[in-house]
């Protein structure tokens, strides 16, 4: 019995190693979100550009929209940013930015520098809304339909491929329904 007890730490450690290994060898983008097909978690947050005003999920009811989670400290956000700017020019779908765990000043400066593709950005300074939405890594992009259901989630930077083949067709079909 006694010797069995001494093995416990080793077993616990091996379990941790297995998970760490799985974490390393896993593409963090492949796993679908459990939130897909579920109602988008409600928020009512202060706007980045107008700290006096708020924007909530309720305000977006009735239209198809994208929620893009971004932060000024996030390097991959720079990668996807030109695509978002282009998307904004095409004016097919409103994109709401969720400025995640960021400083307002840093976020504003970042948008001034890189271009602001968002209809609006809202502030999630402590990341609580991010937790509600199951945000794990930044950036992430959600497609929300007219009824307020999450229909798609892109983990990691948007790619031209994902935008052309998945997100835009989905947005179009949701807008028509």
């Amino acid at each position: 019995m006694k010797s069995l007890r001494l093995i416990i730490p080793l077993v616990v450690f091996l379990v941790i190693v297995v998970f760490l290994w799985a974490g390393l060898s896993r593409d963090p983008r492949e796993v679908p979100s459990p939130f897909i097909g579920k109602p988008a978690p409600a928020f009512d947050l202060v706007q980045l550009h107008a700290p006096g005003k708020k924007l909530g999920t309720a305000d977006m009811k009735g239209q198809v929209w994208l929620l893009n989670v971004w932060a000024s400290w996030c390097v991959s956000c720079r990668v996807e940013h030109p695509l978002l700017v282009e998307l904004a020019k095409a004016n097919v779908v409103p994109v709401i930015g969720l400025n995640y765990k960021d400083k307002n000043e840093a976020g504003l400066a970042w948008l001034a520098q890189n271009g602001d593709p968002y209809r609006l950005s809202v502030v999630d300074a402590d990341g609580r809304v991010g937790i509600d939405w199951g945000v794990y890594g930044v950036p992430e992009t959600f497609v929300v339909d007219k009824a307020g259901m999450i229909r798609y989630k892109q983990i990691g930077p948007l790619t031209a491929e994902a935008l052309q083949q998945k997100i835009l067709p989905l947005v179009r079909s949701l807008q028509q329904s």
Partner: protein
Amino acid sequence: MIPELGHFALILALLVAIAQGTVPLWGAYRRDGALMALARPAARAQFVLVALAFGCLAWSFANNDFSVELVALHSNTQLPLHYRIAATWGSHEGSLVLWMLMLTGWAFAVTLRSRNLPAAMLARVLAVMGLVGVGFLLFLLFTSNPFLRLIPAAPEGRDLNPLLQDPGMVIHPPMLYMGYVGFSVAFAFSIAALLAGRLDATWARWSRPWTIAAWSFLTIGIALGSWWAYYELGWGGWWFWDPVENASFMPWIVGTALLHSLAVTEKRGTFKSWTVLLAIIAFSLSLLGTFLVRSGVLTSVHAFATDPARGVFILIFLAIVIGGSLILYAGRAGSVGGGAQFAPVSRESFLLANNILLVVACASVLLGTLYPLVIDALGAGKISVGPPYFDSVFYALTAPLAFLIGIGPMASWRRATLPDLWTRLRWALAVAIVAAVVIPLMRGRISPLIVVGLFLSCWIAASTVTLVIQRFRHAPQSGLGAKLGANTSAWYGMVVAHLGVAVFIAGVTLVKGYEVEQNVTLDRDQSVEVGGYDFTFRGVVPVNGPNYAGVAGVVEMRRGGVLLDTLRPEKRIYNAGGNPMTEAAIDAGFFGDRYVSLGEPVSDKGTEGAWALRVYVKPFIDWVWGGCFLMALGGFLAMADRRYRLAVKRKIDALVGATA
């Protein structure tokens, strides 16, 4: 030339480390004195070589050698010299060189203070540290070479991340690493003891000062990091439960448990295998922290460039070191045998409770840190665990722990009685209860968290003071000086560190309970009242630094119409990066801070018009770090105890005398 010299020194250090990690072990096994004697010069040589490599890297930074890729990426000619030197460890590769410097530095310190150690013990301890060094040197040389050349050389470097251009950042990493890596000594002593099959009070006495030293440095390192986040990140927070913060906090929690468990092993000979396990876990968590930070499996604000190949390397290294140690533990710890018996109410029991609570607290932090990873690996989706989880779990576990701080030191070893403890502590309890109710009533706001926090803080302070008074009253000596001298510096260390915990809890409770925060937009000469202070905005003035330009807001702070201070929060644009940075202006005080950070100009008139400002009044915030420094001070006092120098020698003399 200098970078090549540094690179060459690292390669030599690897060869020396391999010799240091193998030959003395073989010697200890064969009882061959000549082979064992290699350990000491090898450890010293390794330190000199790594220090040389570190010096070469620092030289490259100081002299703006942009033909070294690392320098070109992380430094700049406009950067002041002290930040250029600090930039040496501002990157992944550089921080690993610092890690190695600390590891070999600790081993070097062991060789200096080892005259009293048996040769076989010293050989094994240094060999284990050598083996850890082999792993890290391989990692450095094969995946993260800091001396890679950039040909052709860059004309100018990019800049050091402006966030890191701060005095706090100059000393925070070295302190943190001192602590982090310092647990390698306690770890090496444990492995050496398991290899030798000898775990006793002498072993505990040898490892104890090293553990306390590492723990004290780690305490300072964590406190400095938290302080830096508070004044540099500009949103007034001081702890974020970020994975990287957790990575440094977990070894600290287990280290705290280890300190207390070592006390039992030294004094009573019990908890032996448990103490060994804690020493292994403390260092394992340091390694795990390195893995989490360097591999990029978890997203974090702190993560610099991450690379999966590095992750795989560290994970394999981790599996070998920790897995190997735990296998050794499973095989050997069973033969250690139990120690002296103790009653359910005794100091041993209270320290056992302390250990269990600390280990569970650490496990909960580990779980919260790794949970997103585990859920993801199980295919159940992706989630993040935030401060709400950590706050609630951590408060629940540390509250009973804080309560025990008051009782433990009062209880006698082996057997204590509750009626006796009650008699000795009832006044402290009464004081704490009254204070916990009266202080919130005086401040005009009361909540359960405030009452519990204040109660625990006052309870620790009152019971510790009671302990000191009773100890002095019962001392046979007469006169205060003699009574003071009657106690060991280790005992005073405990008193100071426990008072540090009281100060820390008071700070956390009061700042969480009574801080006031306002985001305001102020036109020139407009005022706002926050927490009893009037802040008047007088516009902005330009500022120019060595490598940045920007503006400073001028904010006058008044109380009752009297001008107390003029705060100048800055907004800087660094020339090389172009990123704007916020420098908060803080009027720090014993009873709290006034904190102003400058936002953006919000009117069309640009800088001449209205600005967004964030104003905080944070009562007693500096007590949070003050408490940490008291804890570390307690550690240094305990480390200085004479018995760690004398008792070991006496014991050895006795052994030598007995065999001669």
